[in-house]
């Protein structure tokens, strides 16, 4: 079977600087979402136990091919990518990804991370499942494949559910499902030779709807703090007491 892993190209959050309360994303290198890397790792581990291929899919900037090299180095066998200039909103990403996935044969499993590294809105996996008419399970921290069934554990705030879901299915994993491997330099070099298909959005044969969400503003909150330096523990305890947070049992 083919295991599809959908990954999001995002700006490297650690490198975004705030200027005049505005995020500056120009010149920030592109990377893949952390939890998406856990989804890829889960796929690679399943591939190692079953006879499957791991196909990574994604939508991104003109550099998307470069960004996804890491995914191929970390165990993806093939990449199918769409180039999209500018902002994409969840509903549009979902349409593009669903169109990409529809072109792939014998898909058994479609994996996502529980949320993207930048927006963390957790919509796209559920939207793709609805578009493709497939069952879904989110917040999964265990996947075992048995024939045409996946046995998974969904971890919610108050409980864990062991579920059986018929394949093909969409599964969104949590970061605690595994520790994603970091590819070696040789793997990164070899990744360049793995098959890649990079399409323009208009080559997919689907109409991409207009954005359903409009961003009116996106500003860093004011976080002015006093940053008073205290030198000793007794100074700290005194400062706490002065603020009304006395100790004592």
């Amino acid at each position, binding site marked *: 079977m083919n295991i599809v892993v959908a990954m999001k190209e995002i700006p490297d*959050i650690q490198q*975004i600087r705030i200027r005049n309360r505005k*995020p500056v994303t120009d010149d920030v290198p592109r990377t893949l979402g952390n939890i998406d890397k856990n989804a890829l790792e889960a796929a690679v581990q399943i591939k190692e136990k079953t006879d499957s291929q791991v196909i990574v899919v994604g939508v991104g900037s003109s550099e998307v091919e470069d960004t996804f090299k890491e995914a191929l180095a970390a165990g993806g066998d093939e990449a199918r990518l769409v180039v999209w200039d500018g902002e994409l909103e*969840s*509903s549009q990403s979902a349409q593009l990804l669903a169109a990409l996935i529809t072109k792939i044969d014998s898909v058994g499993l479609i994996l996502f991370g529980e*949320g993207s590294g*930048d*927006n*963390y*809105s*957790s*919509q796209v*996996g*559920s*939207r793709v*499942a*609805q578009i493709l008419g497939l*069952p*879904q*399970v*989110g*917040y999964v921290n265990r996947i075992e494949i048995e024939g045409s069934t996946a046995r998974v554990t969904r*971890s*919610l*705030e*108050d*409980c864990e*559910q*062991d*579920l*059986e*879901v*018929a394949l093909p299915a969409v599964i969104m994993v949590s*970061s*605690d499902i595994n520790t994603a491997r970091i590819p070696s330099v040789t793997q990164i070099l070899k990744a360049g030779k793995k098959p890649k298909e990079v399409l323009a959005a208009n080559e997919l044969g689907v109409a991409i709807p207009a954005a*359903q*969400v*409009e*961003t*009116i*503003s*996106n*500003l*860093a*909150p004011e*976080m002015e*703090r*006093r*940053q*008073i*330096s205290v*030198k*000793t523990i*007794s100074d*700290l305890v005194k400062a706490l007491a002065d603020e*009304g*947070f006395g*100790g*004592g*049992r």
Partner: protein
Amino acid sequence: MAGTLIFSENPALVLELATAALEMDSGPVYALVINNGPQAEKLSNHGLAVLSVDEPGMSSFDTAGCAQAVAQTAGQKDLSMVLLSSDRRGKELAGRVAEAMHAGCLTDVKGFSLEGGQLAFTRNSLGGATLATQAIKTPAQVVAVSPRAFAPIAPTATGSIEAVKINVPASAVKLVETRSKAGDTVDLQAAERLVVVGQGVEDQSDLALVEQVAQALKAEIGCSKPVATDKKWYPEERIIGLSGKICKPALALILGVSGQVQFTVGVREAQVIVSVNNDENAFMNKIADYVLVADLKEALPELVRQLG
């Protein structure tokens, strides 16, 4: 804008959604309850207009079926606004309901305002680095509201229950077993004071000292994500930040946290923030009111002694 459908499996969150719906003032408000007679009863007794679905073939753990139930009910009643809880269940549901309703959707919404006559919602973006104000452009709208963003609605005597019939396809998901999570049910968001353990607390044996500090300050203990997910020193419900709890305590005493945005979003609304860190340049210090540059190995025992 014909009205609002609210849904969460958690009755406490339904009451918060009811407040949000009322404040948005977009027509009549109905609460959907799926396969849960007692909950329908309880919510109607609280004053809500309940739409009750009784469909034995459907189960709450099947997101596809639940999404159908929400979308079909909204369709039947001509309700264009759907409010869900932004807990894990609600977030998983949101995208699917939205796609089924051809609706724009926002999750983790913590507030709203009116911008030029349209509803605009606020939520964290860029991993918590920014606060985005966004509007949904489609006639139908799906919004998942963060727990505790709104106060629970006060009871009234106007409740009702109406049965709704829906049509869901057979479920492809089967439940094998449910396990409750361990009985550690701390409510960090209600805590007035927090002591937060980061990876700068290097030895698990030092948690006993942290416990004493927390006791002396009458504080609850929270932690950064890796302390729960990698080290497993505390259960995940104590995680503070983007994928954990967003808190607004009077005091947050932060012990050895570097201050990545995904963490700080969980404490930045505290009244007083104290950071203890051995790195004077730690980002956490820049958003603290008091900064102590010290090695926690030595600072913790001393803090216990002086607070005790």
